[in-house]
């Protein structure tokens, strides 16, 4: 069992190294990022506690993934399997519990501990057997797979925006809209296998144009409902809602280009930091989008003619 955890630690360190960081820096930045995001969430909305618990439980359910738990079951004796699952869930829940204690949410923190341990007894995360219908079938694949994977979270942002309108909190609505755009950006953060790019009978520029066109169209479909609700509820703030929408499009275009700059490798830390910088200082987009465009065209020229 000890070897299993040492191995997991080593694998995580390798992932951090592949990301271009020394493992120590990776752990420090990861911890700082977690605290920063938690703090941001709690400073933006009174619903943060529910979102926080939801995020923790979603993560714990990921550990109950069927193929993963099947592997553990055929590899370890029953006793070791239980201990492994308990320790894993405790490790994942620990930072959430600590932050909740820091925020003096004692009841929630104390409830999360037994909940996390109990979830370790679920060996198969609920799997939706039927195919989830989507409006994105005509142009697979990022929105198809992303929408189905993040359906619960997308629904949560819709609900959050609804709550924002109901309690007349415009900032909460904007937060939900921004969260939705971040989720859409996440559809494009993982490089697809080379086979899928190779298959396209497009020039690099044509390929990127097609990707961007599809992304904008599908983003419009996914954000239409919350945007319309926002415009109806706050018609006088149309410029702010519209501005966020346009910025969202720009960030999605940028993340597509960033993905193909590093392709077929993973997005590098430097590019991710530049992306993050553009969130804090949007005018950077004016220079970054053409820059990443020319870099990604060069990169794709290796695989597309």
């Amino acid at each position: 069992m000890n070897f299993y955890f040492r191995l997991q630690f080593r694998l995580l360190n390798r992932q951090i190294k592949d990301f271009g960081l020394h493992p120590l820096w990776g752990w420090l930045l990861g911890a700082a990022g977690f605290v920063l995001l938690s703090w941001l969430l709690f400073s933006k909305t009174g619903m943060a506690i529910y979102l926080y618990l939801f995020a923790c439980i979603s993560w714990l359910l990921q550990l109950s993934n069927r193929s993963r738990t099947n592997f553990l079951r055929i590899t370890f004796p029953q006793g070791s399997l239980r201990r492994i699952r308990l320790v894993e869930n405790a490790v994942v829940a620990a930072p959430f519990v600590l932050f909740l204690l820091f925020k003096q949410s004692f009841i929630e923190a104390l409830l999360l501990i037994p909940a996390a341990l109990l979830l370790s007894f679920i060996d198969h995360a609920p799997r939706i057997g039927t195919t989830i219908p989507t409006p994105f079938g005509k142009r697979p694949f990022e929105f198809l797979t992303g929408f189905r994977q993040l359906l619960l979270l997308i629904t949560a942002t819709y609900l959050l925006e609804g709550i924002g309108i109901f309690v007349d909190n415009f900032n909460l609505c904007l937060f939900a809209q921004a969260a939705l755009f971040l989720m859409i950006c996440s559809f494009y953060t993982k490089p697809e296998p080379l086979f899928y790019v190779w298959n396209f009978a497009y020039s690099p520029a044509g390929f990127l144009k097609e990707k961007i066109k599809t992304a904008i169209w599908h983003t419009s479909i996914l954000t239409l409902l919350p945007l319309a609700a926002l415009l109806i509820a706050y018609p006088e703030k149309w410029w702010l809602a519209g501005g966020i929408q346009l910025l969202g499009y720009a960030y999605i275009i940028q993340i597509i280009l960033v993905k193909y700059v590093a392709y077929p490798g993973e997005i590098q830390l430097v590019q991710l930091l530049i992306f993050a910088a553009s969130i804090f200082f949007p005018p950077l987009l004016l220079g970054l989008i053409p820059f990443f465009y020319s870099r990604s065209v060069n990169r794709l020229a290796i695989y597309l003619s």
Partner: protein
Amino acid sequence: MIQITSLSKSFGNQVVLKNISATFNTGGVYGIVGENGAGKTTLFNCIAGIEAHEGQITAHHTPLKNHLGFLQTEPFFFSKITGAEYLKLLCRARHKPVVQPEQKNIFELPLNQYATTYSTGMKKKLALMAILMQENDYFILDEPFNGVDIQSNLLITAIIQKLKALGKTILISSHIFSTLHETCDEIYLLQNGSFTKRVLRADFDLLEQEMKQVFIGNKIEQLALK
């Protein structure tokens, strides 16, 4: 036709393909055999343009990659993509309309289910269906019979024969010699990164005998099974 001239490929210091030359004619079916690690998949990746290489690969239809259907040994599928959506994705990639996939579903695949829930054989059949629907002129079939049931093996053999009749150029690798025997016009033996033998259909039996002698030899005795 695909013409390969002086193709070489190395990964660092490791030479995987050494000065390979071959001509694969229109309407020809060519088997590529070799041990695991002989370089078959690297050769296919070079032909497909996925790997950079030394030497030249030319074809009548250019660019070759846009007219090539590549069935990989282990096709990858995104999670939560259905069979029908996968077909659509690959057809769209080649500007081909997806015409009645249900009607072309000769393997009777559950096209509305997620492809990741398919068995190994079903995944292979879905990937094969996709490259057939792309209406390619060239095909690389890397282990097309692997993990596929006997009935579908018969069907795949018939498909290859039909493609040959339609004048397509087909390269196949298989570890099951009988499948190559039935479909190929020529077999190339790839050893240590080079084609060491080119055998015409009339001599397939001889090649099989020779391979048995070379690759089995006294290895069973060496195992000292008890």
